[in-house]
């Protein structure tokens, strides 16, 4: 079972072999967790959202149509993040700037490295869409082509936007 591709495993899960999901969990949970943690910078929330992703995979297993599995799981993760973001935004709509949603949480960060802390702060000052591109491309090492597939854009547009976001992040990072 271990040598099967993600896609082959997911098709069997869709067919009712739920226990195989633990293989995909092994392969993806760290990446998905890190995606969320970079986006919201909160370990507890990131764990919960990661758990949600795998629950959604079971719920929507029949809607998987043999496409690229990584793209599919990131699409689910993005949707979960999006609804989490909307929920939190509504809860404190008058208190904070939309795109600086998670910045307050940096104060409760348990990170010991100053550099990391500093980068995370800078990252949270970006817009959600900019932050996401950097997280996916730089931290998750997803190719531009696949990011385009996940967010429904063209490869070239993703490249240009990512470079722009990186430039902006660099400026914020060195400013402070």
């Amino acid at each position: 079972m271990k040598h099967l591709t993600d896609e082959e495993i997911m098709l069997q899960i869709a067919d009712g072999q739920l226990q195989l999901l633990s293989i995909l969990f092994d392969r993806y949970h760290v990446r998905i967790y890190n995606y969320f943690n970079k986006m919201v910078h909160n370990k507890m929330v990131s764990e919960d959202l990661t758990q949600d992703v795998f629950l959604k995979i079971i719920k929507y297993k029949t809607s998987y149509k043999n496409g690229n599995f990584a793209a599919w799981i990131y699409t689910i993760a993005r949707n979960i993040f999006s609804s989490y973001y909307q929920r939190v935004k509504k809860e404190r709509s008058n208190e904070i700037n939309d795109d600086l949603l998670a910045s307050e949480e940096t104060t409760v960060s348990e990170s010991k490295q100053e550099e990391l802390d500093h980068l995370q702060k800078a990252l949270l000052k970006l817009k959600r869409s900019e932050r996401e591109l950097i997280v996916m491309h730089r931290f998750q090492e997803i190719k531009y082509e696949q990011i385009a597939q996940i967010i429904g854009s063209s490869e070239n547009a993703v490249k240009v936007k990512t470079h722009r976001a990186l430039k902006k992040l660099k400026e914020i990072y060195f400013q402070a």
Partner: protein
Amino acid sequence: MKCNHIQNKLIGFLENSLSEVANSEVKEHLKSCTNCNKELEDVKSFLNILDNQKTEIPSNNLRDNFNKMLASEMANASPKVIPLKPQQDWKSYLKVAASIVIVIGAFLFGKHQSNITKIASVKNEHKEQVLALLENTSASKRILAVTNAEEFTKKDTKIIEALINRLFFDKNANVRSAAAETLAKFSSEIIVRDALIKALETDKNTTVQIELIQILAKIQEKRAIESMKKLLENEETPQYVKQQVELNLPSLL
């Protein structure tokens, strides 16, 4: 301006994702521009910081919760599959059977329904036909109708009335006697008996008179005795009619 343009491409340059033309353009510029070389170093070190980010490892809670979730999802899924299957089959057979029953039932009901209306309409049609024939200008058609009228039950007063009508008012003696003959079959009806007696008093045709005398004797209608005696007393009554009366009168006395 030129430098700004180049600096926008430095990330792509370091990533090796530029087109060949753009790549050589940046290379060429970097040979002569110290400012942009400094910027290149900045970008490089910044990307290094990013790339040195360690992936964080989530706590064990994540795996524990996942295992719990998966176990409960599997438990939810499996008992559903096993008992549901035979039940589903049984149900689907029942559904098929029910639909067959409905189709056949509807077919039979429809057939039955149309039979009833068919019979009723045939009967009705026939009655209308007979009633129409009774009014036909041809005497032979009227006789045919009168004899056909036998088929109807006593309760059908419309037919009986039409026959009595023929008995009194038909111009043709043969039709009148045929009507009398047919009416004899409905002799249990009081209006039929009354009509026959009345006809004996009024009809001047001897054939009809003889027919009526025979019928009244046969149905034992004692109220006809007086009319018969009148016929005997009447001088105009032909001899053979009187003979017929004399022949039948004793059975009524």
